[in-house]
């Protein structure tokens, strides 16, 4: 069986965020949304934080009020947190450690001839 991991699962997957962010949502609590802000044209949207809102329209307005009040952004994305799937921290070793001794994957590993410029 495949187990889904949700954003916010870290360290509390048995009885925490995973339950809250799925169908067992407390009726009196608004769902959690992740907010991504583009600080200026041409740049990527970056994760800014999260907030509660009843729906996407309210999430965007709340994001505007919470995360762009000091001119931080020109564009906002929101996505309900339950739609973000995260890698399992328990598998971090298998996932990330094998890359640690592969220095040749960095371009700086290679000596380039001086004639090559702008690299």
């Amino acid at each position: 069986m495949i187990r889904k991991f949700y954003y916010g699962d870290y360290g509390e997957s048995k009885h925490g965020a995973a339950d809250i962010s799925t169908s067992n949502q407390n009726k009196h609590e608004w769902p959690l949304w992740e907010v991504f802000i583009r600080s200026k044209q041409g740049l990527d949207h970056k994760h800014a934080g999260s907030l509660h809102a009843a729906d996407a329209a309210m999430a965007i307005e709340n994001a505007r009020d919470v995360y762009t009040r000091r001119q931080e952004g020109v564009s906002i994305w929101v996505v309900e947190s339950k739609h973000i799937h995260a890698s399992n921290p328990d598998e971090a070793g298998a996932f990330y450690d094998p890359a640690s001794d592969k220095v040749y994957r960095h371009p700086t590993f290679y000596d380039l001839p001086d004639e090559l410029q702008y690299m």
Partner: protein
Amino acid sequence: MSQTMIQYEGRIAQIVQEDPMLQFLLYAGDNALITGHRCSEWCGHGPILEQDIAISNIALDYIGAARNFYQLASTRIQQKDASLEVTEDTLAYLRDAWDFKNLLLAELPNGDWAQTTLRVYFISSFQWLFYQELIKSTDTDLAAIAEKTLKEVKYHLRWSREWVIRLGDGTEESANRLRQALTFLWPFTGEAFKEASYETAASSTTNIQLANLHESWKQELQEVFAEAGLEVPTQQAFQTGGKTGKHTEYLGYILAEMQFLQRAYPGASW
């Protein structure tokens, strides 16, 4: 910093009394200041953190707009008599209730979230129309303030409109609360469209024709109330007086809190 702030009385009041344009500036500024103060009362008490920040932002927008009007008014008072030390603070903190010209609607208590958001909706939907005319004013300073404020008001309107629809079209309880809020606030909504004498006198400069605004405003209300499942009340008897300084008892309490510091420690700064 001056040791004592000049009181709003005597010569300043007289200059204002003789100039409909100055009265208009105070009217616009007072609406913003008092609405902003009411919104600021939610700071730290909002129903949810995100909305607490939202209404605090709105409060700051309003108070910023009030400052613009007061600064312009105080500059113009000084142009008439350079010996007067009048600043935006004199106008905000040293006038008494009878000198304030804000709509009664602005000073009514916040009540619950439904009453608060419905009030912001009534005021911002009026201001949305009001400032759109004001940007065409022949007074360029006034037009500049209107242009800056219009963007803020557009957001206040969007925010409050959405809350009215959400609550009206929400649960039984939220719809009930919104209906109660409407019953309470409605008698105060007509005042904005009843011309005070200084509005009439200044209208060739301000470009504001309230009768036209009233029609557009009713239309806006029809659309939003239909979506919210509310009936637009038919009652046409409205409370008035705020524009000419005859206020409800609520304003006195607002001023007591808002002006306490400047009156107890004149000229205090931080």
